């Protein structure tokens, strides 16, 4: 079962990779076409070796990235984003820091940019920074996972396989951003309680998890597969910008060319894919 899911995710990742050429995700899932596309990519440009080298130098065709506009964000918008994300992904609200699961949450400048905190910057100090998985290019969590339950997809998304995770929590020790949560208790019990007491509705399109596994933001990979934008972008399109960092004509690259941006703990070499526009 887990293999199937994993293979599916890999194929889905590959399909997104090729997906730039146009065409829907489902069309591209046809193996023949994927192969043909790859062939095409590899030999494009005439001379064999040279073209290949160039293709390698150019790196991947897709690297998803998230831009958070700190000039557009407000407390209300941040809360809305958290609410939408946690409802799309059936994240229970435990209401205490010991058991809590967070995919996206809010914190202050001082805690978010621990390495480059500037105490004289009174503008940044007052802003609600949104935190999530950084989908690093060099993810330490994927490096330490003993079962490859967490892995980096070719499109840059750091995915988590809830069916393979053994719950050792090595990834939580390795993540320098504190982006990972562990299901200390059974999340389904809490969700049922919330459904009964608060009238919460489950998102039937996204699986609930079992206790004893790690989870985190997945850049809404399930929505990307359907050609939709991530939930947070849909909730606040003026704050959240999602796009392909590998494409220099993409929306995110255009914004990054014009705006000043920050990324967290760059000195660690993790190469985060989440940018804060300040």
């Amino acid at each position, binding site marked *: 079962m887990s293999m199937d899911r994993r293979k599916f995710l890999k194929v889905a990742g590959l399909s997104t990779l090729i997906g730039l050429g146009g065409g829907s995700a489902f069309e591209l899932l046809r193996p023949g076409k994927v192969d043909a596309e790859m062939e095409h990519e590899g030999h494009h440009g005439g001379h064999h070796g040279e073209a290949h080298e160039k293709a390698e130098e150019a790196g991947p065709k897709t690297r998803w990235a998230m831009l958070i506009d700190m000039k557009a964000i407000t407390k209300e918008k941040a809360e809305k984003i958290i609410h939408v994300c946690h409802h799309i992904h059936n994240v229970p609200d435990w209401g205490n820091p010991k058991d809590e699961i967070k995919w996206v949450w809010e914190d202050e400048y001082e*805690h978010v940019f621990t390495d480059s905190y500037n105490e004289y910057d009174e503008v940044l100090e007052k802003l609600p920074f949104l935190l999530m998985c950084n989908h690093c290019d060099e993810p330490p969590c994927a490096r*330490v996972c003993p079962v*490859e*339950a967490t892995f980096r997809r070719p499109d840059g998304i750091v995915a988590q396989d809830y069916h*393979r*995770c053994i719950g050792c929590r090595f990834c939580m*020790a390795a993540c320098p951003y504190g982006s990972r949560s*562990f299901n200390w208790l059974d999340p389904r019990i809490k969700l049922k309680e919330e459904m009964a007491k608060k009238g919460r509705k489950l998102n039937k399109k996204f699986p609930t998890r079992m206790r004893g596994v790690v989870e985190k933001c997945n850049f809404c990979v399930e929505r990307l597969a359907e050609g939709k934008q991530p939930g947070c972008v849909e909730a606040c399109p003026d704050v959240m910008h999602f796009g392909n960092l590998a494409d220099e004509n993409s929306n995110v690259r255009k914004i990054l060319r014009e705006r000043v941006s920050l990324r967290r703990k760059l000195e660690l070499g993790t190469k985060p894919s989440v940018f804060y526009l300040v």
Partner: protein
Amino acid sequence: MIEKALKGSSVYWGWVIFLLCIIGAGFLAYLYQLKVGLGITGMSRDISWGVYIAQFTYFVGVAAGAVMLVIPKYLHHYTKYAKVVVFGEFLAIAAVVMCLLFIVVDIGQPMRMMNVVLHPTPHSMLFYDMIVLNGYLIINIICGYNTLLADKKGLPCPGWVKPFIYLSIPWAISIHTVTAFLYAGLPGRHFWLTAIMAPRFLASAFAAGPSLLVMILLFVRKVTKFDAGEEALQNIARTICYAMIVNFFFMGMEFFTAFYSNIPGHKATLEYLFWGIGEYGNLVPFMRACIVIGFAGIFILLVPPIRRRPLWLAIGCACVFLATWIDKGVGLVIGGFIPNPLEVITEYHPTFPEITIATAIWAVGGLILTVLYKVTISVREEEQRV
């Protein structure tokens, strides 16, 4: 040979039943944890490893410590250790079993444990830890059992066992090096990100394992006819003392680098552990006690007239064992999570079920050790009679 564990005094059986009761209580607590989840422990999103992994780390060291007897005996043919080396090997067996149990109780989905074997992942240090720990267990079972069997028959150890004994030396180093690598390779955890982690682990291991052994051998001398030999005990004590001095020296180097460079991230955990930060200072009494007790242990074991008195020798070893336990079994793992990556402090309070489970694993180790040592001592007593 193993049947000798079934013949014992009422005190022996009382002890075994006592251990079994603790194990039973721990087993019930574990069933509760399996049913409800790791939420019954004091661990949290911020402190994601607790008592279990801390004890695991400490006992890897105890297991590796056995090599301090194997090296003199087999590489330097130091015959005074001939009678005690098997005690070291059996201690390693008990300690490694404890380590494996601590891992099992710590993981959230123990039924998926075999995924580590099904999906071998060479870029994960846990993969190597699995190999070296299980390997060390097997090597020590082979060496310990065959050494004792040969002793019983009054024959030299069979030739094919020798390569395993030599292999056990680098293997002992490897188990603790790989365990240090679990921590020392993580970006963003300043307290753990230190190249001296593995050497320091080894130094404290070579103090911890043998100190437990000396305490047990002194006890054995008191209650049975088996005597490990004064010179052997004194020499192990010297080893413990030097290893403990090196351990504290390495700890001092951590302080120097952190405080002279004055980099906040590097200082934070040490400040938390030894002075407390703001209102948070749970571990301060432990860590300060560790320093005092550790130096007391060094002093007792360093001064020959004190060390030669059996009671003081036992106290000295107890000091070293306790100090290394606080350092590695409490401060090192918990401290690494404080402050968290967002520089927020969450403290850790182990719960009753969590401590019950951990105590039960100690009891499992105690039971394995009791049975193996009972067999060994019975064999040795027979030898002495003949």
